[in-house]
């Protein structure tokens, strides 16, 4: 059953993505409204699928990489719907939905069985949840950064096209960028700490400098510097946009590293 809902979710997210991208070319808001509706239905279906899986597994379904990516996609849509609800920012969908769909698609390419966890690894889901939520924050910052650069470019070149009309103010995008990192960073920090604890329980050492841990630490350092730079030397606006785009690329690389190493399961 949960597989069926997952399939439905995928179809709905992909449709939503296509509609949202299409709405970028149209002046009227009608398309965006439809895309929003499709996404909302997809979200409900996704929630049901996750809940069913959770009931089957008997714990939060966050132990395999497949589940982690599915959860990442779900949380991203939550954030989108929340921002949409608060600011009526339809255009955000055209940027977030592709990422949500893509991560769900790549999740589908991975093995879906629940790995039987050794009892001591049962707490690994805390680490995964926190890390994934951190990644969601960075993904939103990434999207805000891209939107910022587009709007900045349009204003600089004085091209007042449909995209210009649909994108929000630079100020708003910079703020969204900052807020997302401010939310994502402590979550990643906690994710790394809990990960280290899990590693200690599993392998006896907190830090073994495998590529996953190294990637996570580099990412953490990077965002730490980005945040520090914003506060101290004014790394905001365009610079912040560029940095968060680079940062998210790092996050994605780390995740790919985890996927390859873990071959579908995390610990």
């Amino acid at each position, binding site marked *: 059953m949960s597989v069926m809902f997952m399939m439905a979710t995928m179809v709905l997210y992909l449709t939503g993505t296509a509609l949202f991208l299409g709405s970028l070319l149209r002046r009227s808001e009608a398309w965006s409204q439809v895309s929003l509706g499709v996404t909302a239905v997809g979200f409900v279906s996704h929630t049901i699928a996750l809940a069913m899986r959770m009931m089957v597994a008997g714990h939060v379904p966050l132990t395999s990489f497949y589940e982690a990516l599915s959860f990442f996609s779900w949380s991203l849509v939550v954030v989108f719907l929340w921002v949409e609800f608060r600011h009526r920012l339809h255009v955000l969908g055209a940027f977030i939905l592709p990422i949500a769909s893509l991560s769900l698609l790549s999740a589908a390419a991975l093995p879906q069985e629940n790995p039987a966890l050794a009892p001591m690894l049962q707490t690994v889901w805390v680490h995964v949840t926190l890390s994934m939520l951190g990644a969601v924050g960075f993904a939103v910052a990434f999207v805000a950064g891209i939107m910022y650069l587009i709007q900045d470019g349009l*204003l*600089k070149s004085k091209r007042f096209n449909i995209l*210009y009309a649909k994108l*929000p103010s630079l*100020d708003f995008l910079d703020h969204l960028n900052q807020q997302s990192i401010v939310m994502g960073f402590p979550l990643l920090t906690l994710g790394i700490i809990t990960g280290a604890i899990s590693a200690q329980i599993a392998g006896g050492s907190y830090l073994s400098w495998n590529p996953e841990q190294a990637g996570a630490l580099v990412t953490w350092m990077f965002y730490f510097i980005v945040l520090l730079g914003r506060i101290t*030397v*004014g790394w*905001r606006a365009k610079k912040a946009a560029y940095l968060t785009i680079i940062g998210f690329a790092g996050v994605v690389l780390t995740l790919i590293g985890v996927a390859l190493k873990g071959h579908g399961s995390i610990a």
Partner: protein
Amino acid sequence: MDLIVVGLSHKTAPVEIRERLAVPESRLGEALCRLRAYSGIQEGLLLSTCNRVEVYAVVERVEEGYARVQDYLADTHLSLSSEQLTPHLYCYTGDRAIGHLFRVASSLDSMIVGESQILGQLKEAFAVALTHKASGVILNKVVKKAISVAKRVRTETKIAEAAVSVSYAAVELAKKIFSNLSEQCVLLVGAGEMAKLAGQHLVNSGVRHVRITTRDPHSALALADRFNGVSVPFDEFRREMAASDIVLCSTGASQYLIRAEDVQRAVRQRMNRPIFLIDLSVPRNIDPAVKDIDNAFLFNIDDLEMRVEQNREERRREAVHAERMVEEEVGVIVQWLKSLEITPTIVALRKRAEEIKQIELEKVLGRLGHLSAHERGMIESLASAIVNKMLHGSLVTLKAESDSASGAMFVEAARRFFNLEDRLGAGECHGLTPERACEDDPAADALSAPPVPAASRPASPGDRKGAADG
């Protein structure tokens, strides 16, 4: 009974004529009473703005109505003769008059397409007409519809969205850089008219902190007073720039007052927070090289003009949608007007009575079982007699009143008393009170309406349009 409009607007008459005809708001009531005194005018509404003077009236005969209203307009001002006036007047009736009113209300006929004042002015004119009981069944319905059409046009098209003045275009751009203007600080450099206007627009849009600098300290003080701002000495303003989010420059200086390095320094001091610079002066006062500085956004007068032209184009595009909407809605109202005609109402009323009679007869005859032909005949003629006697008074009154001033009211009343809405007007008022029904989409209604006998379906231009839309 026909609806007519006679009037002139900025499109047909120069201001010298318009100003003489214009009626100040305080005297609208009096002017309306004077209009009603002309024979043959059953309902009236006077719309007088700086761009148009129009009389909407319900008259018995169209040609006579035109003549009466023209007389009335010529009589408004002693120095105006009908010969002077007539070439500037337009006269419409029926669907064209309704369409004109809808277009006026929706600001499609305005000097600046999409402006919002006209709707308020129409509402006021309507309120005056209501207070002086100058409007009746027809005008009430048509004007209310015009107001709802105008609202629909405003919400469903973007006709009123884009800025069509240079100073307002500056505000629109500011909103694409800053999300909350009330937190921003604007620096006015120079006291040019355009800068003042743009400054005013910014303040109206929420900007609270205004700083002003001019070469002449007195005018800076005067402006500071007007905007509730602070004046800054002219030779220090470059240092103030870092604290300003928006810099509006409009002076008569012949060289660059703000150089690229000034802006570069300001951006650095602002820790890369964006700064929005508007150069309204010719020759330009801000070095165009500023455009290459990150996080500084410079727009000159040409950029703003270009934006305005794009927005005008956008409004024109939206006006096309709006025209289509108006056409659709005119069809609805024309059908309603047709339904107010006496003959279809009488036909429908008879038909309705006949139907009720037949249904009741069948019921009772079915229950009584075998009756002789004579007995059946007796019962049937009893039913007919009751129906006919009941209807007789109503039909006589309807016929008698059909040519009177309150004819439309009687027809409307008959339609509502006997629930004839679904038989008349090809269904746009199907089963609903007319006010509600006409808010609905006529195309959708046309689909859901029951088949209407050809005899009672009015064939009007509106009807044809409705059919085309459906």
